[in-house]
C-alpha cells in the first residue's frame, strides 16, 4: 500500500476546511457542496485504501513511522498504519460523514460555514484516531475530536445544549487524562510511544498491568459508554443536531470499543484475561439496563440513545470473550451499530424537522401518510433488533457464540449464564424497538398535525439508501467483512493464547 495514502485520508478534510475559510458565510449552498465534496473525496481515498489493502496480511499496512519529537528523552513518532482491526472503522467514518453532511442540507441554516468546518475537523480527528500507531499521536487525535464535537453540540444543539456540551466534554476528558498518565508511564518505561514496539516488548508486571489497563479503560469505557459511565450519552445525543448524533453514535462511540481492541487487549493481555469476567458482567448489565431504560422513554431520540448503551454492551461482551468469534463479532457489531443507529438518528431527525417534536405520543398511524418513511424505518428497526437476514443478527449472533465459548469468561463465572442473560437483551431489543415502531406508525392517524406530513424527498432517500444497502449486504453475505478482519484478529487472539498458556491459566 502506498504509505502516503493514510496521511492523505487523514488530512484531506483539512483541505476542505481551508477552502471553506474562503467562502463567505452567506453562500450556504457553496459551503454545503464544498463540505460534501471534500467528504466524498475522503471516502474515495478510503476506497483506494481498501482496494490496496491485503486482507490476508495480519500486520499493519501502509505504515508511516517518521521521527517527530525525538529530543530530551522524548521518542515520539508520527506513525500511522492500518490493519484488519481498523479498516472497517475507517471506512465507516468516511462513509457516514458525507451522509451526515447531506442530512444537514435543510436542518442547519444558521452558521453553515462554522458547522461544516467543525464537521470536517471532526472527521480528521476520527480517522486519525483509527490510524494512529503512536500512543502520543493517538492521544492528540483522541482529544482533538472533543473540540469540534463540543461546538457541534453547543452551538447547533437543542435547548439544553450548553449543559450537554460541557457535560460531554468534561466526562470524556476525565477518562482520557487518566489514560494520558498511563501513556506517559508506558513511554518512560518502554522508551518509545510506538505501539507495535511497545506490544513487542511486553513484559509489564501483572499488578502494574492492571493499573494501566484501568487507566486506559477509564478513557475508553466512558466513550463506549459502559454502564455505569453512560450518563453523559443521553444528554449529548438528545441535544446534538441530527448529524452530530449520527457521528456520535456511529463513530465516536466506536473509538472507545476500538481503543479496547487496539490498546487494552494487546498491551495488557494478562490484565485483560484477569478482568475479562468483570468487563463481561458490566457489558451484560449495560445490555439489559440500556434495553429496559429505552423502553421507558417517551422521546424517540432518547430511546435510540439508550439503545446504544445496550448495543455497545454487546460489542464489549464480544471483545472481552477474547476469542476469534467474539472479537470478530464485536468489530462487525461496531459497524452494524454505526449503520443502524446512524440510520435511526437520521430518520428521527427527518420527522423532527417536519413536526419539531420527538414525543412518541404526538405520532401514530404515520404509515398512511408517509409510506416510504415507514418502510425504511421498519427495515432499520428490524436491523437494530437483530432480525436474521439483516446485519444486526450476524453481529449479535457471532458475539453470543463467542461469549458462550469464551475461555476467559469461564475463569471467573459461567460463560453460559452470562451469555444467557445477554441473549435476553435481544428479546428486550425487540420489545422497545417494536414498541417505538408501533407508537409511531401503526394505530389510527388521529392527530391533526400529522395528516399532511410530506413523505421523504429525494435527498432524504439518498441519505438513507446507502445505509440500507449495507444493512442487507452484511445481513445476507457478511463473509467479505469477516475476511477483512480475520487475520488481524487471529494474530491478536494467538498472542492472548500465548499469554494464557505461559501464565497462570
Amino acid at each position, binding site marked *: 500500500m502506498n504509505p502516503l495514502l493514510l496521511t492523505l485520508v487523514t488530512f484531506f478534510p483539512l483541505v476542505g476546511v481551508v477552502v471553506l475559510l474562503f467562502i463567505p458565510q452567506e453562500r450556504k449552498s457553496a459551503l454545503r457542496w464544498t463540505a460534501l465534496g471534500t467528504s466524498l473525496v475522503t471516502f474515495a481515498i478510503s476506497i483506494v485504501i481498501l482496494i490496496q489493502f491485503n486482507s490476508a496480511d495480519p500486520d499493519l499496512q501502509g505504515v508511516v513511522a517518521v521521527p*517527530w*519529537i*525525538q*529530543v*530530551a*528523552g*522524548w521518542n515520539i513518532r508520527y506513525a500511522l498504519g492500518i490493519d484488519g482491526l481498523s479498516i472497517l472503522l475507517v471506512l465507516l467514518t468516511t462513509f457516514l460523514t458525507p451522509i451526515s453532511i447531506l442530512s444537514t442540507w435543510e436542518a442547519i441554516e444558521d*452558521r453553515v460555514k462554522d458547522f461544516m468546518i467543525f464537521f470536517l475537523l471532526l472527521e480528521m480527528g476520527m480517522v486519525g484516531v483509527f490510524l494512529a500507531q503512536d500512543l502520543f499521536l493517538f*492521544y*492528540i487525535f483522541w*482529544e*482533538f475530536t*472533543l*473540540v469540534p464535537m*463540543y*461546538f457541534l453540540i*453547543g*452551538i447547533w444543539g437543542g435547548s439544553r*445544549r*450548553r449543559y450537554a*456540551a*460541557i457535560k460531554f*466534554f*468534561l466526562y470524556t*476528558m*476525565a477518562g482520557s*487524562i*487518566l489514560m*494520558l*498518565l498511563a501513556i*506517559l*508511564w508506558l*513511554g*518512560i518505561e518502554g522508551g518509545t510511544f510506538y505501539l507495535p514496539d511497545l506490544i513487542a516488548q511486553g513484559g509489564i508486571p501483572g499488578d502494574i498491568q492492571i493499573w494501566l489497563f484501568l487507566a486506559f479503560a477509564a478513557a475508553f469505557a466512558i466513550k463506549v459508554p459502559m454502564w455505569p459511565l453512560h450518563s453523559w450519552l443521553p444528554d449529548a445525543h438528545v441535544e446534538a443536531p441530527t448529524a452530530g448524533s449520527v457521528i456520535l453514535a456511529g463513530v465516536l462511540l466506536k473509538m472507545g470499543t476500538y481503543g479496547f481492541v487496539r490498546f487494552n487487549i494487546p498491551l495488557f493481555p494478562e490484565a485483560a484475561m484477569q478482568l475479562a469476567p468483570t468487563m463481561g458482567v458490566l457489558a451484560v448489565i449495560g445490555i439489559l439496563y440500556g434495553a429496559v431504560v429505552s423502553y421507558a422513554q417517551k422521546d424517540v431520540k432518547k430511546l435510540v440513545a439508550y439503545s446504544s448503551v445496550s448495543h455497545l454492551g454487546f460489542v464489549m461482551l464480544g471483545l472481552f470473550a477474547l476469542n476469534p468469534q467474539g472479537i470478530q463479532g464485536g468489530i462487525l457489531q461496531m459497524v452494524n451499530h454505526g449503520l443502524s443507529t446512524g440510520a435511526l438518528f437520521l430518520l428521527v431527525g427527518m420527522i423532527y424537522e417536519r413536526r419539531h417534536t420527538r414525543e412518541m405520543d404526538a405520532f401514530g398511524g404515520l404509515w398512511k401518510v408517509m409510506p416510504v418513511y415507514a418502510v425504511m424505518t421498519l427495515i432499520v428497526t428490524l436491523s437494530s433488533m437483530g432480525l436474521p437476514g439483516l446485519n444486526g443478527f450476524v453481529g449479535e449472533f457471532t458475539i453470543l457464540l463467542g461469549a458462550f465459548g469464551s475461555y476467559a469468561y469461564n475463569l471467573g463465572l459461567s460463560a453460559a449464564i452470562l451469555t444467557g442473560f445477554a441473549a435476553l437483551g435481544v428479546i428486550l431489543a425487540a420489545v422497545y424497538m417494536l414498541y417505538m415502531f408501533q407508537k409511531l406508525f401503526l394505530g389510527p392517524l388521529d392527530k391533526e398535525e400529522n395528516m399532511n406530513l410530506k413523505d421523504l424527498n429525494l435527498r432524504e432517500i439518498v441519505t438513507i439508501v446507502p445505509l440500507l444497502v449495507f444493512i442487507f449486504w452484511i445481513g445476507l453475505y457478511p463473509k467479505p467483512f469477516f475476511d477483512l478482519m480475520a487475520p488481524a484478529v487471529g494474530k491478536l487472539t494467538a498472542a492472548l493464547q500465548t499469554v494464557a498458556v505461559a501464565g497462570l491459566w
Partner: protein
Amino acid sequence: MTATDFLSVLPLTILVAWACVLTIADLFIGRKLWTAVLAGLGLATALVVAVLTGGETRVGFNGMVSADGFAVFVSVLLLASGMVAVGLLYGYSRRMGFERGEIYTLLLFSMGGMVLMAYAADLIAVFLALELFSIPLYILAGIARPRSESEESALKYFLIGAFSSAIMVYGIALVYAATGATALSGIVAALGSPAFNVTLFSVGGGLVLVGFGFKVGAVPFHMWIPDVYQGAPSAVTAFMAVGAKAAGFAALLRVFVTAFSTRFDVMPELTTVIWWMSALTMIVGNVLAVSQKNIKRLLAYSSISHAGFILMAFTAYGQESVAADSVASALFYLLAFAVTSYGVWAIVMSLEQVEDGDDGMRKGLNLDDYAGLGQRHPALALAMTIFMLSFIGLPPTLGFAGKLYLFRTAIAGGFYSLAVIGVLTSLISAYYYLKIVVIMYMVDGEPQVHKARMLGWTVGVSAVGTVVLTIFASPLFAWAAGSVLELFR
C-alpha cells in the same frame, strides 16, 4: 570588580545602564512614543546580546552571578516578554489616560532585576534581584492613580512584597549562619563540614522557600494575587503574570536545585513540603477559579494553578535521574505559559472599556461581556479558544506540550498520586476555561471591542505560536533540556 565582571553579565549591564540613561533622557522627550521605542530598543539590544553571548558559561563578581545556559534561556524569555509588555503598555496607558515616560524606565529597571534573578548564583544576589524587580512593579501596579483599585493593588502588593522579602532575607541569614556562605556553591561545599548546623539550615531553607512561594504565588502564599492582578492596570498585570512569575521561578529553580537539593540527603522533608505546596496550589487555584465572574480574577486564580503544575514537576527535583527534567520542564512550561498568557491578556485589554461600570471597575472585564464574541469577532474568539485549550492543556497547543512534559517528569519521579491530582485539577480547569468558550460562542451578545494594531498583533502571534510551536516543539524541548545541563555539573 573589573570590566570582565560587567562583561560576564553584559545583557544585564546594558539593561541597567539603558534604564538609567532613559530616565534622564525621558525628561527631554515630548512624545512618549519615543520613550517606549527606546525602551523596546534597549530590551532588544539586551536580547540580541544575550543570545550572541549565550554560547559559553562565565562566572562574574566572585561567583555572585553565573551566565550559563539556564540564565540565557530565562533572560531571553524575560526580555522578549518585556518587549511585548512595552508595546502593550504604550497603547493601554494612552487609552486609559495614564501615559507617562516613567512607565518604561520602571519597566526597564524591573526587567533588570528579573534578568539578575536568572543569573544570580548567590543568595545575596538573589535578594538584590528580588528587590530590584519588585519595587518598580509596586509602582507600576499603582501607576493608574488616582484610580482606587490601582492604588489598592499597589499597596497590597507592596505590603505583601515587603513581608515576603523580610522572610526571605531572614532565611538567607539563617542559611549563612548554618553554612558560613551565601554563594550557592559555597553552601553546597559547607554541607559536610563540621561547623554545619542542620537545624538552622533547614529553617533557613524553609524560609527561603516561603519567600519564593510568595513571589510565584504558591498556596498558601497566594492570597495577594487575585486582588493585585485585578486592581493593577491590565497591561501591568500581563507583565506581572508572565515576567514576575518567570523570574520568581527562575531563582527558585536554580537555588533549590543547586543548594537545597534533597540529593545531598540534607532536609529530605523538603520533597514532602513541595509535594503539598504543589497539590494545594493546583487544588486551590483551580477550585477557586471556578466561581469567578471577573476575567482578571479568573486569570489570577488560573495563574496560581499553573504555578502548582510547575511545582508538581519540580517535586522530583531531588532525584538524580529526573532533576534535569524537573527544571527543563518548568522552563518549557514558563515559555508556553508566557506565549499563551500574553495572547489572553491582549484580548482582555481589547474588551476592556475606558468607562466605569456599576461596580466602579472598568467595563468589559466580566465574563458576560464576552457573550457573542464568536459571532461578532470570529478571529478574536478563535484565538481565545486556542488560548483556553492551551491553558487546559489540550492538543494541539503549546500548553499541551508543556503539561505533558511536566506530567512526564512527575511520573518519572514516581509521584503518581500527585500526577493524578494534577490531571483531576486540570479537569476542573477545563470547566472554567470552557465556560468562557461557551459564553463566547453559545450566548448572544454585543461585545464592545477596542481594535488596536499592537493588541491584534499580540493576539495573532500568540495564537499562531501556540499552535505552530507545538507541531515543531522539538527544538524548544531540546533548548530547554540543554540549557539546564550546566546546573548539574
